[in-house]
């Protein structure tokens, strides 16, 4: 009789541990989802800012048609890739980032544009959106790392395996130098 109770006790304890670990995994996964939504918001904001930027810049930059077209094209491609997975999307967004950086670099050649209040306000918003994208990416990747660690480590890997948790995908933007705007020198 006592043996039965011991077995029942062990089963109950295991069940409780299972539930606790499962709930924690769900918490981590929700954090990852939430972080992904954050990136999405900022990427959308960037799509919205680019037409405004083009409109402001158009009148000043007569000789930069190629650079401007590259930005518009990269934006449209990125928007199309919006429904793809983190890996593919990262590539498209990386293209857009570097196209934008090239455009902002040639602004140095147009002092009139640099004095335009409208442009300055847009530039601040763009700079900040770029930062927000990379900060939300940073937070997302940190969350994915924590989540993946939980999925792979004992004992939570057992629970994850039984209930079908899948490891998260990192969001890497391919153009690593996107934050560094190349300096244009006149010498």
């Amino acid at each position: 009789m006592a043996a039965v109770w011991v077995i029942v006790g062990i089963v109950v304890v295991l069940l409780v541990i299972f539930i606790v670990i499962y709930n924690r995994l769900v918490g981590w996964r929700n954090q990852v989802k939430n972080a992904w939504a954050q990136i999405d918001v900022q990427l959308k904001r960037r799509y919205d800012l680019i037409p405004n930027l083009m409109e402001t810049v158009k009148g000043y930059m007569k000789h930069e048609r190629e650079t401007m077209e590259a930005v518009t094209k990269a934006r449209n491609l990125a928007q199309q890739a919006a429904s793809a997975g983190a890996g593919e999307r990262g590539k498209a967004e990386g293209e857009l980032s570097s196209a934008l950086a090239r455009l902002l670099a040639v602004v140095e050649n147009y002092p009139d544009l640099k004095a335009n209040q409208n442009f300055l306000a847009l530039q601040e918003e763009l700079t900040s959106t770029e930062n927000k994208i990379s900060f939300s990416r940073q937070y997302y990747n940190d969350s994915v790392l924590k989540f993946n660690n939980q999925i792979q480590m004992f004992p939570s890997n057992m629970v994850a395996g039984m209930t079908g948790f899948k490891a998260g995908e990192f969001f890497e933007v391919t153009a690593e130098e996107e934050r560094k705007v190349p300096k244009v020198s006149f010498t």
Partner: protein
Amino acid sequence: MWEQIRSNQTRSVVLVAGMGVILLLIGYLVGIIFFDNAIGGLVIAFIVWGVMSLVGYYQGDSILLGMARARKISHDDHPRLYNIVEEMKIASGLEKVPDIYIIDDPAPNAFAVGRNPDKAAVAITTGLLQKLNRDELQGVIGHEIAHIKNRDVLLMAISSVLLGTIVILAWYATRLMFFGGMARSRRSSSSGGSGQIIILVVAIALIILAPIMAQLIYFAISRKREYMADASSALYTRYPEGLASALEKIAASTSQLKSANQATAPMYIMNPFRKEKRPASNLTSTHPPISERVRILRSMGGASFADYEQVYQKVHGTGAGVIPASALALSHPASLRAAEAESKEPDKTERVRQISDLMWRLGNYKTITCDCGTKLRVPPKFKEPAVRCPHCGRSNPVA
């Protein structure tokens, strides 16, 4: 992270209790001296303690912001500051953007207040806003957001309200003793109790010492959190150099914050009453020495908690660290990033101009730019339909 939050909640309770004991002590002594009734004094002190704790919990943030004469701004008032706060909110994973306040004071300083992460605010002086570039501002805001994220803000709000109460009560008690208490002590000495005189002397000494004791409790818990917030800021921004150079700029300034006092001092990023070359072991210093904070930030090889912990131990030469073990266990490598491009920065003159525009606007002044380029500031009381430009004589309509 969790351990830090939990230990802060424990500390909040210990602090409120410790301050309560001191307050009860004052009540007891005041009761003995003035009313010949220790119980009455105790009851009053107990009520005052309860009420002030609740005030600190529910109103602490608005009291502190009001005392600092801080004014709330929105995105359009100062887009750069607003955006940076939003950036740090994203990096820290906070759910809500804290309210943003500006203090019109040339002394560079900043602080965060709030009850919980959903109801929090950061305040920054115009002096700091003018001095810092984007990366430095990011570092400072990251530090303040870390205080919100680590639940340091509630601790600050409650403790400064309680400390303020104790200081004020003790002040009045000593004044009362000199004027009102004299008559009674003459009466009691004529009844001939030498024991009563001793009690009186001890009571006076204790009332004078009480505010100092309360401050010691307060200081003891505020220093470690500064290191923790620095480490978090480095992790959020991935650029410890930003905060380091901001701290240097703040330390180099000689102006003192007008609206700060002893009770609110520990909540600022930099002690507003600091003196030159204070020793690190100073019992009453609320903040670790700046040079040390800067040195740690500058020698970090990466941006993670583990990197900060490693450098901290090296600088201090001890095995004891500042980062809680549970936060370290979750720490993962984080690489540093490059500095923001200077070309996108508004320069110092432009920053000063932006802030002066902002302050005029907050004072309800209208700014009209005349065709000759002169900026006209129209006070809110001005009722005429048009104003003449003193520079070129054109008449500008007041919209």
